[in-house]
C-alpha cells in the first residue's frame, strides 16, 4: 500500500479491512436480529390473513427478501470481482469471493421457499417457467463461480478467472428481474414497483421491508466475517497476521 495514496483506499489493505470489519460485524448482527424480530412479529401477528391465499402467503416475508438478496449479491459480487481484477486490488477480490457462498445460500432459500409456496397456491413445487428457471441458473452461476475459484491454486489467477465468469453471468440478473414481464410466467409480477402504488396491505409491506433490511444486514455481517477469515488465510505470512495470531493465541480478542 502506497503510504502517500489517497485515504479513500485506506481500507483496501487487508489488515485495515480486518480491523474495520471487526468493528462493523457486531453492529450488522444487532440490526439483523432486531429487524428480524420486528419483521416476524408484524408479519405473523399484525398482518391479516390474505383473502385469497389464506396464511400460506406469509412465506412472502422470507421469500421476497431472499430472492432480492440473491440478485443484489450477485451484482455486488461481480462488481468487486471486476474491480479486483482491473485494479489488482486484493481486498476487492477477497470480498467478491466472500460474497459467493452467502449469495448461493440466499438463492437456494428463494427457490426453496418458492417451492413451498408454489405447492399450495399453484399446485406444483416447480415449473420450468422463465422466473424459476433463470433463478435456478443464478444458483448454478454462484456454484460455478465458487467451484472455478476453488479449483485454481494460485489466488491471483483464481480471482481473475472467476471474475470473468462473474462478469459474464451478470446478464442473467436482468433476465430474472424482467422475466415476469418479458414472458408469460406462472410466477406473479413484481411485488414492489417504484412507479406504482403497492398492491398489498401496508402491514404486509412493512413486514417484508423489515425482513429485507434484516437479510441485508445478515449478508453484511456474514460476508465481512468470511472476508476477515480469507484475509488471514491469504496473508498467512504477513506481519499483521503474525501479530494478530500471537495476540489471539494469548487469549486476546481477534
Amino acid at each position, binding site marked *: 500500500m502506497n503510504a502517500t495514496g489517497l485515504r479513500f483506499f485506506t481500507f483496501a489493505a487487508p489488515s485495515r479491512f480486518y480491523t474495520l470489519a471487526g468493528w462493523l460485524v457486531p453492529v450488522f448482527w444487532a440490526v439483523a436480529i432486531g429487524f428480524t424480530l420486528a419483521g416476524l412479529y408484524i408479519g*405473523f401477528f399484525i398482518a391479516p390473513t390474505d383473502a385469497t391465499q389464506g*396464511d*400460506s402467503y*406469509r412465506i412472502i416475508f*422470507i421469500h421476497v427478501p431472499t430472492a432480492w438478496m440473491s440478485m443484489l449479491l450477485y451484482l455486488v459480487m461481480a462488481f468487486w470481482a471486476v474491480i479486483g481484477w482491473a485494479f489488482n486490488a486484493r481486498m476487492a477480490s477477497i470480498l467478491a469471493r466472500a460474497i459467493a457462498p452467502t449469495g448461493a445460500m440466499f438463492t437456494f432459500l428463494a427457490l426453496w421457499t418458492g417451492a*413451498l409456496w408454489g405447492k399450495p397456491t399453484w399446485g406444483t413445487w416447480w415449473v420450468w417457467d422463465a422466473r424459476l428457471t433463470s433463478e435456478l441458473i443464478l444458483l448454478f452461476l454462484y456454484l460455478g463461480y465458487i467451484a472455478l475459484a476453488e479449483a485454481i491454486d494460485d489466488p491471483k489467477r483464481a480471482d481473475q478467472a472467476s471474475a470473468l465468469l462473474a462478469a459474464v453471468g451478470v446478464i442473467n440478473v436482468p433476465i430474472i428481474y424482467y422475466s415476469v414481464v418479458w414472458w408469460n410466467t406462472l410466477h406473479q409480477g413484481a411485488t414492489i414497483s417504484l412507479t406504482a402504488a403497492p398492491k398489498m396491505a401496508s402491514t404486509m409491506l412493512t413486514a417484508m421491508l423489515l425482513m429485507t433490511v434484516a437479510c441485508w444486514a445478515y449478508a453484511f455481517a456474514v460476508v465481512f466475517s468470511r472476508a476477515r*477469515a480469507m484475509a*488471514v488465510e491469504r496473508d*498467512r*505470512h504477513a506481519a499483521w497476521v503474525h501479530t494478530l495470531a500471537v495476540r489471539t493465541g494469548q487469549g486476546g480478542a481477534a
Partner: protein
Amino acid sequence: MNWGSAAEFFAMGGYGLYVWGSYAVALLLMVAEPLLVVRRRRRALRDARLAEVFVTDDAN
C-alpha cells in the same frame, strides 16, 4: 391478533407445513453459515500461528 391459540398459530390455517418448512430451513441455514464462518476464522488464525512456529524453528 390473528390467532386464538398456539395450536391455531402452528396450524397456519392448514398451511403449517409450507410456512414452517420455509422458515425452518431459512433459520437452519442462517444459523449454520455464521457458525461455519467463525470456525473458518479460528482455523485461519491457528494455522497462521503454527506457520509462525515453523518459521521460527527454521531460523534457529
